[in-house]
């Protein structure tokens, strides 16, 4: 025997009127094509009376009846080019850097990078303004005398010569904007509780510069850098120091990994300032992500 529910349903259906065209309706979401020009009298085809509208002789777009159109009135000048997307490296001179060192604003017994320079408070850059790091300029190349391990983003041959003449090392290094934001204000970055980002490789137009041993790029071949140092010493007429077992040699050779942005801290770590500890990922996926470029 059928259940009560099914019995009731069947009775309902039996009592209802027959389905026909007169008692069914489409869903509210149904769409209909517009009925265009169908019917008995279609003389104007929806185009109205005379004029450009019915004769298809419209003026070209932007035409102002013979008056100089807006697009023609202002000339196009290409001298700005792609200034809005070009990378910028705000400058700081060797003289300023020497002054910072002399006044103990920068500690030369540790590697000096953009973080140390920004921590002095005397140099600032803005990632939002396409600033991609610091550019060391030539003023003060005669007076520069500091054995420094310097890591910057842009420089010239003369600056490299001045730094190496006084017994230091210099490296040009690329940081992508996300990393730069962390580097400019590490404290603010750590307070957000975000992991240390891994640095991206330079874009195509910058790759040549950062792989060039002449500019001491961080992606250059160390053997070629060795030769480039000798070549520069011969060009500018100074002798390179022979650091056999000098302990300062280890300091001068300290380099970050291409994906690393802080000395001693790895990408993926979270620096917990409140509890004064560092949280490191253990998951394999995370480790793989922070270990590889892609």
């Amino acid at each position, binding site marked *: 025997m059928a259940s009560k529910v099914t019995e009731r349903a069947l009775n309902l259906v039996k009592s209802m009127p027959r389905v026909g065209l007169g008692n069914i309706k489409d869903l509210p979401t149904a769409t209909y094509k517009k009925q265009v020009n169908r019917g008995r009298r279609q003389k104007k085809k929806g185009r109205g009376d005379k004029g450009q509208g019915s004769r298809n002789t419209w003026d070209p777009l932007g035409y102002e009846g013979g008056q100089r159109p807006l697009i023609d009135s202002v000339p196009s000048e290409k001298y700005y080019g792609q200034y809005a997307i070009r990378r910028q490296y705000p400058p700081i001179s060797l003289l300023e850097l020497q002054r910072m060192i002399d006044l103990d604003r920068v500690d030369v017994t540790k590697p000096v990078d953009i973080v140390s320079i920004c921590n002095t408070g005397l140099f600032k850059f803005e990632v939002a303004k396409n600033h991609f790091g610091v550019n060391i300029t030539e003023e003060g190349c005669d007076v520069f005398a500091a054995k420094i391990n310097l890591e910057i983003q842009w420089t010239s041959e*003369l600056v490299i010569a001045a730094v190496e003449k006084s017994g230091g090392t210099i490296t040009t290094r690329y940081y992508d904007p996300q990393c730069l934001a962390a580097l400019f204000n590490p404290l603010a970055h750590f307070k957000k509780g975000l992991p240390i980002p891994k640095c991206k490789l330079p874009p195509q137009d910058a790759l040549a510069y950062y792989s060039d041993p002449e500019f001491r790029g961080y992606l250059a071949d160390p053997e070629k850098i060795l030769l480039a140092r000798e070549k520069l010493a011969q060009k500018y007429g100074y002798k390179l120091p022979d650091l056999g077992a000098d302990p300062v040699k280890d300091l001068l*050779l300290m380099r970050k990994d291409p994906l*690393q942005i802080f000395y001693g801290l790895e990408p993926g770590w979270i620096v917990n300032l409140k509890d004064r500890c560092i949280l490191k990922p253990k998951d394999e996926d995370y480790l793989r992500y922070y270990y590889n470029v892609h």
Partner: protein
Amino acid sequence: MFRRQSALILRQFNSVISDVCSPKIQTACFKSHTSIDKIYPNSNLDYLRKPEQVQDSFAKTGSPDAPEKFTGYIPIEQLEVTATRSSGPGGQSVNTVNSKVEIRFHLESASWIPDWIKPRIIEKAEGKLTKDGYLVLRSDMTRKQILNQADCMNKLRNLIFAASTLPKPPTQQEIKVKEERLAKAKAGVLREKKDRALLKQFRTSPESF
């Protein structure tokens, strides 16, 4: 207050960084998939070491028959480099800054120049030699001492290279071309002479015909 706190924290972190990445455990530092030793596996990362043979990297290749060549390498420790004030306009900076560079060395006792080049240098740079035999080169081309020193080095290197260039012996092709041209010129002269002789003959009476 907050700024000083932040400075303290950063200084403490700096000390953490120095302990972690101290020279003794430098090898324990982070090395990713794209570390330099993986990109260049055959390269020695210590580029502050003394290179094995520096002079050869500047050497110009020469034939076995040619005499010892100047490689371009100048030992700076064997030169006397002094800086003095430059001449010309420039106000306080030109009066006080030692930007002019003078390089001098005793030419005959220089072991880094092959002996056969030395008399040629004396020929080329007579005015730059002192009575005692010192070659003196000066430069105050720029406002920076380091660039003026580079200019002096450049001048010295160019001088020695210019003095050491031997006239190139002509190649077989060059000899052949020269001989052909000479023969052609000679043939042209002889033709002209013959034409001239014929003309003179036509002016005389036709006895011989």
